[in-house]
């Protein structure tokens, strides 16, 4: 009975994971398909992987996705970290107001954020394109940075910064040498979250560009009506494998690190 129960427990998670990965498996398998559709298997081929790199449209969309993710999260890190340091010093009501307004892009439905930004761009007659895409991504990225840095600021001893000033450090030196290093873990979390959000986003990108510039997700969307090209499956497979590798590498490193620490503690 106990055994049966344990089997069921493992089985339940396994079924869930199976369903979660079924479509991903399907995509990966069919990226090696000779034929053009996911309806029929016509034999193993690496053709789509070769074709992928010759496709200028896909390569450009990939470039847009990566560069927007990198740029928007870098800008978000700078603006967001400074904002968090400032907001932390605010008095009660300006602080509450700013924090609540910062929650808006995080809580609002993506589609409403996208539409409201589109209205702004239309109203201010800003032509839709790479620039508006960058603005939109930075806009939804900054709150993630602020909310990962703020808790670190609260944990930190406020006297540290004051002490540096008393010892004769200029404010900018104290910020660079005392404040920023203390906040680094929060800043890194914020950066990774922002990068991920930007990389994954479809809805806000779609509305803020009106399809005039394509990143990967809007390009996939434009193909979804007519059928997705297997080259995209090949690209997703490559990216997915990269992410898994990255995760394994960081996990193994973290493991080694913690084991080393344990050893040192024992000594």
């Amino acid at each position, binding site marked *: 009975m106990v055994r049966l129960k344990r089997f069921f*427990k493992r089985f*339940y*998670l396994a079924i*869930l*994971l199976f369903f*979660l*990965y*079924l*479509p*991903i498996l*399907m995509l990966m398998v069919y990226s090696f398909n000779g034929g053009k559709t*996911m*309806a029929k298997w016509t034999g193993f081929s690496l053709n789509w992987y070769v074709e992928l790199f010759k496709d200028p449209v896909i390569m450009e969309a990939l470039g847009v996705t990566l560069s927007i993710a990198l740029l928007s999260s870098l800008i978000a890190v700078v*603006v*967001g970290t400074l*904002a*968090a340091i*400032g907001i*932390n*010093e*605010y008095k009660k009501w300006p602080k509450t107001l*700013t924090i609540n*307004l*910062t929650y*808006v892009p995080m*809580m609002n*439905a*993506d*589609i*409403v*954020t996208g*539409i*409201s*930004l*589109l*209205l*702004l761009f239309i*109203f201010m007659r800003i032509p839709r394109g790479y620039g508006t895409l960058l603005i939109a991504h930075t*806009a939804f990225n900054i709150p993630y940075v602020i909310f990962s840095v703020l808790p670190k600021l609260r944990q930190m001893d406020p006297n540290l910064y004051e002490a540096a000033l008393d010892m004769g450090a200029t*404010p900018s030196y104290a910020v660079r040498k005392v404040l920023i290093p203390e906040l680094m873990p929060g800043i890194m979390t914020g950066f990774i979250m922002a990068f*991920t959000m930007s990389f*994954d986003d*479809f809805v806000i990108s779609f*509305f803020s560009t*009106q*399809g005039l510039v394509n990143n*990967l*997700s809007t390009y*996939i*969307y434009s193909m*979804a009506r007519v059928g*997705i090209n297997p080259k*995209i*499956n090949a690209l*997703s497979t490559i*990216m997915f494998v990269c*992410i*898994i590798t990255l*995760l394994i590498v960081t*996990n193994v490193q973290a493991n080694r690190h913690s084991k080393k620490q344990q050893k040192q503690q024992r000594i």
Partner: protein
Amino acid sequence: MKKKFFALPYIVWMILFTVMPLILVLVYAFFNTTPSGDVIFTTEYLASAFSPESLSVLWRSLGYALITTVLCLLIAYPAALLLSRLKPRTASILSLLFILPMWMNFLLRTYAWRALLDLNGPINQLLGLLGIPAQQMLYTEGAVIFGLVYNFLPFMLLPIYSVFTKMNTSYIEAAEDLGANKRQVLFRVILPLTRPGIITGITMVFMPAVSTFIISRLLGGAHYMMFGDLLENQFMLLKDWNTGSALALIMMILLIISMALMRKYDKDSTEGGTRLW
């Protein structure tokens, strides 16, 4: 320079790109420019946003989102519980496995489900081997809800799991020692303690589900349009900014209502934590 001023660039940014856009939604929803250039107040757009057609889409979306949220909760809760009972190392690897699919574009995953659920797709072929006639799965209401549950499940699972990992298990042991049976432990101890996770999960699933678009179109065809699809049509196809803004306004009001409700329950749950004793 005072540290306060560090926030200045962000304050300017926030006013420009968070506050202004929301004000513009209101402006476009309620004001109209006449051909002569006058700006006049009108409720005409709001009236067309509340037309019977769009209301029927709204009810359907709310219904789908509700079913999706309930299903996600019923599926994710036991999973989170099981996950938290595993050895820490196995649990951390498995929880990572639940997050990983989110790194594959959701459009692509939904598109792959189309191929899987197809009348001639792998699932029907498998059923055929078992002697079951092929089922029409794609382009049904069931397919749309399946797609939504598939997409939002991790957003329900992760917050509940994280509450489980932080939970002090000595409460459970104490309840057991004091003679509570398994049912009582679940309903009187575990459930109240994990309420914050459930609330976060519901907020992360319900409203996003109401406003999704494309999932319904890809898996349900043209028959099961959701509110997000309606909004997209209004903006991208008809380019009717005014009616579109009025529809977006409905969405914003819904969000405010649901957040107020959640906040109320969240408060109750923290009080509930003390009421336990």
